[in-house]
């Protein structure tokens, strides 16, 4: 270990603290806002000390938004459920399709394999707004507009390329000899895929799945155009807080806290696993 002087360590600590504060401050502020009423939020100067209230959360959970203009129904919990359902289903479908495809692209160089892989990647280049209009028309004709099925399908544009390309790299990193050894030991290629390739690429698959989940969760524009109120995820549902009688900052903050909670929890949980998995040095043996 290199020797660092005390002053260097203190400076480094301060620098790290600054970075953390810079990035965490908005989250912290939103968290505080979610326990305040609109009045305290909008008071100037901002108040650091206030009487916390749970009314924002109760409003979200009961679905009744009471404001000066009257009572408004919001479907936030429904939106949250939609987000969870859409993201989980999309990632599951993507993993189911993408992982075997990634294995095929990594292990078998067949005619056009690079072209197909690149075409899939190019789905991520296209600006979503460009494809949305034709997509909407097609979906209306096919009866897929405003269905979970249609949305999950469109979400594949987000998840599939990501999973395919990340996982492919992990499969390529596995020494072919390790798989050969398993085949020679008398196992079928499918058993080799299941017992050797999948576990060894496990951390990569988890990372890709997590990333795809976050992208799917954060998606806004596809769901905005293709889904009506009862299928909308939270990203779109949050628009409901911009009401005729003003913007409901307190509820927005509470909604944000609730909607980032699943991804945050997932990321924190997976991080431990990912770091462990990645530092395993799985490939060299």
């Amino acid at each position, binding site marked *: 270990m290199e020797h660092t002087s005390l002053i260097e360590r203190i400076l480094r600590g301060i620098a790290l603290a600054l970075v953390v504060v810079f990035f965490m401050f908005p989250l912290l502020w939103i968290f505080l806002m979610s326990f305040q009423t609109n009045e305290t939020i909008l008071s100037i100067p901002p108040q650091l000390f206030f009487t916390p209230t749970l009314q924002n959360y109760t409003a979200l959970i009961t679905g009744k938004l009471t404001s000066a203009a009257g009572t408004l129904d919001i479907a936030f919990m429904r939106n949250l459920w939609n987000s969870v359902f859409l993201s989980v289903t999309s990632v599951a479908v993507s993993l189911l399709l993408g992982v075997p495809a990634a294995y095929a692209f990594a292990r078998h160089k067949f005619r056009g394999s690079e072209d197909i892989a690149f075409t899939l990647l190019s789905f991520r280049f296209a600006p979503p707004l460009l494809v949305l209009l034709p997509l909407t028309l097609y979906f209306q004709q096919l009866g897929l507009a405003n269905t979970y099925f249609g949305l999950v399908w469109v979400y594949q544009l987000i998840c599939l390329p990501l999973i395919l390309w990340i996982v492919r790299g992990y499969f390529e990193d596995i020494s072919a000899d390790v798989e050969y050894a398993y*085949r020679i030991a*008398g*196992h079928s290629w499918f058993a080799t895929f299941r017992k050797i390739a999948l576990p060894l690429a496990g951390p990569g698959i988890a990372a890709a799945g997590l990333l795809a989940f976050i992208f799917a969760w954060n998606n806004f524009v596809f769901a905005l155009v293709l889904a009506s109120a009862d299928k909308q995820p939270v990203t779109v549902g949050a628009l409901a807080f911009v009401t005729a009688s003003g913007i409901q900052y307190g509820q927005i903050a509470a909604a944000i806290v609730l909607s980032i909670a699943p991804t945050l929890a997932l990321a924190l949980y997976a991080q431990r696993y990912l770091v462990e998995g990645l530092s395993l040095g799985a490939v*060299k043996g």
Partner: protein
Amino acid sequence: MATLELHSIVKRFKDNTVLDDVSLAVDDGEILVLFGPSGAGKTVLLRLIAGVLDADAGRIVIDGEDMTGVDAEFRGVGMAFQNFALFPHMDAFANIATPLEARKTPRDAVRAGVESVARLLKIDHVLTHRPRALSNGQKQRTALARALVGSPPVLLLDDPLRNVDAKLRFEMRLELPRLLADRGATVIYVTQDYKEAMALGDRIAVMGQAGIRQIGTPEEIYLQPAGLDIARLFGDPTINLLDVRPSRDGQGIHVALSGTRVELPAAMEPSVGRACVAGLRPETLHFVKAGTKGAVPVTIEAETPLNEKTVTLARTRGGREILVSRPAGTPGPDHGEAFLAVDAGSVLMFDKASGERIAAGGPAAPRKRATA
């Protein structure tokens, strides 16, 4: 308990022909060593036999059965990889057990099988360790155990001692022949170490560019190498190679070394008048007293005592360097002028242009197992 035949195997990678028309037959229970420099296609050949690569042409026949189109898992071969290729997410026990599990062996039998082979290879105390917790030697033994455990009739060993330390390599070189003989398997053993090849092989196949240069017993390879390249690969110190042009007169065929006439056997007839390279094994040269008939005068340049032998660098009158090897402890000159006797019967004669050995003759030297 199987024979193995390769018929005209061709393998190309893009435009690079790695194996060109390779044919080979290995007897039941024989240990054949594939020997050659890296890039000669030894590993590719093993993989073709194992079935993880497909040949572009030719047939592989194991125990009379054509293996073309037969997947690796149905070929009944065991293989140990040079880089061990252990499964990093399984402990040593699970690694070794994989061939047995593939055959749906009952759990008790798997345990018994793994433990017996682990005891044999002295790794029974590390069976619960994962590969990354094993030393290189233990990894190598685990890989070997995995290849052996199912008692495959054909065993392919791809330079298994390459990545282990010198001490272990030496031990394993002594242990392996017995181990393999006990198994009774037909073995193909790949190595780049000529001592390993000589110690283990019933026969050695020397691989050169895109094919097999020579197949023979270790003695044949050592004493009658097919070409200069092979002669150079075997032996330590390496063979002395001297440009000569044999000629014939009334007394017979001879060459001149240090201005001294060295008689050659009559069988060297085809070399007369051609530009040749004479190969003299360092251990076939002996220091003799001055005045001995046919003794070649040399100047001693340096002497290197190795453990079991002493190697002397000498220089001929013409300035050519010659290495002489003699058992350690035997007397010999260490400086100044000396005289060398050349055992004419053990001279190897190669055509200078082609590098091929000129059919020389006769029973070349005693048929003792030559090592080092």
